[in-house]
């Protein structure tokens, strides 16, 4: 179902609508945020390169990883790197985000940094100027798809770094400008959510039409090292998708890494998360399955006499045993075979008679 | 480590062309390090010989107990006895007044080895007058050609005046420094006047800073300035023949800053007050009545080695022997009273580490 997320990105935005956007949240507990990001990136790349998507190109803004790693990744997925010039531009904010290298080079301390030949890379030398960054992204995108009606996608590798260099509001402003630009089809970004306060996380979720959370696997086993071991092999992928009809589609999947490929499998116990959130969360189980319900009905309760098929006459505290046969003052309990339920039919001898309070109400139980 | 603990080597003959080991108040430790005495024989023994030359020693004060002052005094007095230059900084208006409270060496009757024979025969005077003896004679240590590495101090007797007058003692008030550059400069000037290490050490210096992060100091809010000061002191001391001894009340710092300070310390000790008339502790510990407080050793300097020093015990009780000299003792659990059983044991003892 992670594919569903990718398909929504592929389909892009309708005319006059904001671009589709996806936040991928991860935390340090599960090291697979970047992996999921790259999965989405490569999926979308293959849609774009085969012309199946609304967008005709993709601009990758990379902060936390070198473009060479992206090239490597595309190669591993069997995507033609040489042909990527047609549909991929990389804005490299990783190699020299603050212009240190540029300055050192000018002073003759270091030599020219290597440039990545295999991809079409533009190096950004001051990421603190987000206006410039915005126009650079647009220039690169238009360079791919032209000035017409064709659209392109934007991928931002870690907003976290971007916020570190600037501020939350300016990053949010940049994203909003990108989303509302007519030529942007879809955007997705990665956010290390545990590095930011809830406000920042909420702000970016507000700006996105889809939110994906990468989490460590939940497990009943409480052994610390077992949990760590597991969360370095597998994880959970939670996604919520705001649909056009106003509904929210919630998905949960488990993923694991096999042969350096990420594999998604749906979780068997996937209960409806919305339904769960409507019901108050309690420590014990309030819902019963049908089987549990029928099992419960079969339990013979203490106030039902265990010797079945006998009508039982119970001493009511006022009359001696020999008056038992007096039918008017008998309390009767009967077991109904068909429904499997216990039922007590109770006759009072007169309406104004108050029940005796000084009697032990339980002395009639046969336990 | 065991051999360096033995105190018998603390006596050494002073010969003019002697190897460095005969320099008063210094002795060789393992891994090419040199020890300098803390002024408390027991503490020297626990630390394996004393403080490393070039180390930063930090004491975490207990705001409820003044015992860090005892350590500070003995540390400074020991330096003066050995004719080592001392720099003292404190957050008081007149730090020089503190010098008057430094203790003198203990001259006990049963410890005859310290005294010269002549003194024993000819003069029998009350201890109060001993200080006058010293005024027209060279200090005791040099009189008989013997120098003790570590002295016992009599905490009730002030140090001889000539020791203060005759030595290089600099006093700095931390109140005068609006920024820390002033005190940093005096420290670096102090250290630069010490002879450099060139295979042969001739003398060592001591820097004593009391209650460094006291709130009355102007720099109290500038935690990064304080950190960077400590870091630079540490680096300066490391490359010179000195020991810096710094006490600070950790509770006045935020937890993370306090941890940073603790990381900066080469040797880290802490003081803990002992509750008065605590019946539970009294039954739990032998000698509870005599205890002044507790001294814990958190970190022992690890110079030129990667092996941590693991002590048998990390918490010691501070006591006054004969109401004069400071001794440290391991905590001993009192024998449990047979009648009452062992049920009385401790809700309080969680903090005690035997």
């Amino acid at each position, binding site marked *: 179902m992670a594919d569903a997320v990718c398909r929504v990105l592929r389909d892009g935005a309708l005319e006059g609508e904001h671009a589709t956007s996806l936040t991928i949240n991860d935390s*340090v507990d599960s*090291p*697979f945020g970047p*992996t999921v990001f790259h999965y989405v990136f490569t999926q979308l790349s293959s849609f774009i390169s085969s012309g199946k998507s609304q967008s005709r190109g993709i601009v990758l803004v990379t902060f*936390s*990883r*070198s473009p*060479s*790693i992206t090239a*490597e*990744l595309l190669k*591993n997925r069997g995507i033609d790197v040489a042909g990527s010039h047609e549909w991929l531009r990389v804005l490299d904010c990783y*190699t020299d*985000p603050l212009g*240190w*290298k540029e300055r*050192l080079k000018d*002073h003759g*301390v*270091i030599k020219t*940094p*290597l440039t990545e030949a295999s991809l079409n890379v533009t190096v950004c030398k001051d990421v603190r100027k987000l206006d410039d960054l915005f126009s650079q992204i647009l220039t690169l995108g238009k360079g791919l798809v032209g000035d017409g009606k064709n659209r392109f996608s934007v991928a931002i590798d870690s907003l*976290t*770094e971007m916020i570190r260099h600037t501020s939350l509001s300016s990053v949010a402003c940049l994203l909003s400008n990108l989303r509302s630009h007519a030529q942007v089809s879809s955007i997705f970004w990665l956010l*290390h959510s*545990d*590095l930011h*306060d809830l406000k920042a996380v909420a702000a970016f979720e507000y700006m996105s039409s889809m939110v994906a959370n990468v989490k460590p696997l939940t497990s009943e086993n409480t052994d610390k*090292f077992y949990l*760590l*071991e597991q969360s*370095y*092999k597998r994880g959970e992928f939670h996604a919520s998708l705001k649909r056009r009809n106003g509904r929210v589609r919630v998905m949960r999947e488990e993923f694991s*890494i096999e042969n*350096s490929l990420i594999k998604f499998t749906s979780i068997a116990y996937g209960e409806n998360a919305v339904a769960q959130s409507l019901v108050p969360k309690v420590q014990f189980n309030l819902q019963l399955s049908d089987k549990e319900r029928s099992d419960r009905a079969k339990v013979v309760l203490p106030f039902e006499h265990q010797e079945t098929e006998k009508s039982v006459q119970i001493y009511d505290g006022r009359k001696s045993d020999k008056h038992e046969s007096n039918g008017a003052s008998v309390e009767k309990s009967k077991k109904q075979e068909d429904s499997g339920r216990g039922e007590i039919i109770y006759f009072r001898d007169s309406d104004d008679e108050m029940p005796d309070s000084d009697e032990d109400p339980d002395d009639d139980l046969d336990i | 480590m065991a051999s360096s603990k033995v105190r018998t080597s603390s006596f050494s003959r002073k010969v003019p062309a002697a190897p460095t080991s005969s320099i008063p108040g210094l002795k060789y430790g393992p*891994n*090419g390090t040199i020890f300098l005495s803390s002024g408390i024989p027991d503490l020297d023994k626990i630390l394996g010989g004393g403080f490393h030359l070039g180390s930063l020693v930090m004491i975490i004060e207990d705001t409820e107990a003044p015992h860090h002052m005892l350590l500070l005094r003995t540390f400074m007095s020991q330096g003066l006895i050995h004719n080592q230059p001392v720099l003292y900084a404190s957050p008081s208006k007149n730090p020089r007044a503190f010098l008057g409270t430094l203790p003198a060496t203990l001259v006990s009757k049963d410890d005859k080895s310290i005294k010269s024979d002549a003194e024993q025969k000819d003069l029998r005077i009350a201890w109060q007058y001993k200080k006058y003896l010293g005024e027209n004679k060279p200090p005791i240590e040099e009189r008989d050609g013997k120098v003790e590495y570590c002295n016992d101090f009599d905490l009730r007797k002030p140090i001889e005046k000539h020791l203060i007058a005759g030595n290089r003692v600099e006093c700095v008030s931390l109140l005068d420094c609006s920024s820390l550059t002033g005190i940093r400069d005096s420290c670096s000037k102090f250290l630069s006047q010490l002879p450099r290490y060139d295979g042969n050490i001739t003398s060592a210096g001591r820097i004593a800073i009391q209650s460094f992060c006291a709130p009355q100091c102007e720099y109290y809010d500038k*935690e*990064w300035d304080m*950190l*960077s000061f400590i*870091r*630079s002191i540490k*680096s300066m001391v*490391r490359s010179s023949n000195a020991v810096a001894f710094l006490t600070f009340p950790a509770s006045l710092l*935020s*937890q*993370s800053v306090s*941890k*940073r300070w603790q*990381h900066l310390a080469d040797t*880290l000790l802490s003081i803990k007050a002992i509750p008065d008339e605590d019946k539970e502790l009294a039954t739990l510990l032998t000698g509870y009545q005599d205890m002044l407080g507790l001294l814990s050793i*958190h970190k022992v300097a690890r*110079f*030129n*080695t*990667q*092996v*941590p020093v*693991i002590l048998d015990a990390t918490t010691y009780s501070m006591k006054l022997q004969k109401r004069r000299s400071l001794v440290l003792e391991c905590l001993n659990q009192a024998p449990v009273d047979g009648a009452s059983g062992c049920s009385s044991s401790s809700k309080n003892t969680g903090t005690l580490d035997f």
Partner: protein
Amino acid sequence: MNRPASLLDNALNLESTQKGRVVLVEDCVETSGAFVLHHLIKRFLSSPNLSSSDSIVLFVAFAQPFSHYDRVLRKMGCNLAAQRETKRLLFFDMLMLECPDDGVEGGLIALYGNIQKAVEVNSSNKNITLMIDDISLLEVAANGSTKDVLNFMHYCHTLTTQFGCTIITVLHEDIYSSGDGFTFPLQMEYLADITIKTEPLITGLAADVHGQLTILNKGMIDGFGSSKGKIHNFHYKIKENNVDYFYPGSRS
């Protein structure tokens, strides 16, 4: 002295083909993690497994002077002074480095420039390891500006992809554990491929067990992963010339 690979070496698995990894050592007041650095210096400079003449160590020292490391490593059978002579060890003494308030320029950028210069000179077919012995002190040198330190670390990180450098750093984790919303160790963990934590045992320090190591190896993220375990936990005892690593309870 060709010892079998220790548990630590196996857990780090630095021999694998993947270059350019970031190793983060997190320690605390009770258990210093410096011994991991010593171990790795020795490994890179005089391990028989790597063709050692090809490896260079750049050591940026904030915590201890050269004389200290020289003596420690000498006891482990590795002569740092000689290695420095032959330019296989480049030692940057930063004990007195100060970066004034707006002086990232003179301080951290210059330091980075020197590092990259050294890397460029040695970059031809060599394994370069960059070690920084105390990031927390780098923070003090930068006057508490965590942002500048992170920028500096980011630039160091670019060396891993550009030149295949391995980066090894030490961070005092307990400084940040007071729950005041410090994100610095987390940021460093995101940057790191391998995190090594040293902690005392819950029962405290002992003469036989000096502490425990937990190693988290993200390893495979770029797709070079091996099927080895990613999490390791074992005890250690530090000796002058060596460190013993062993699983809990496996020593009599």
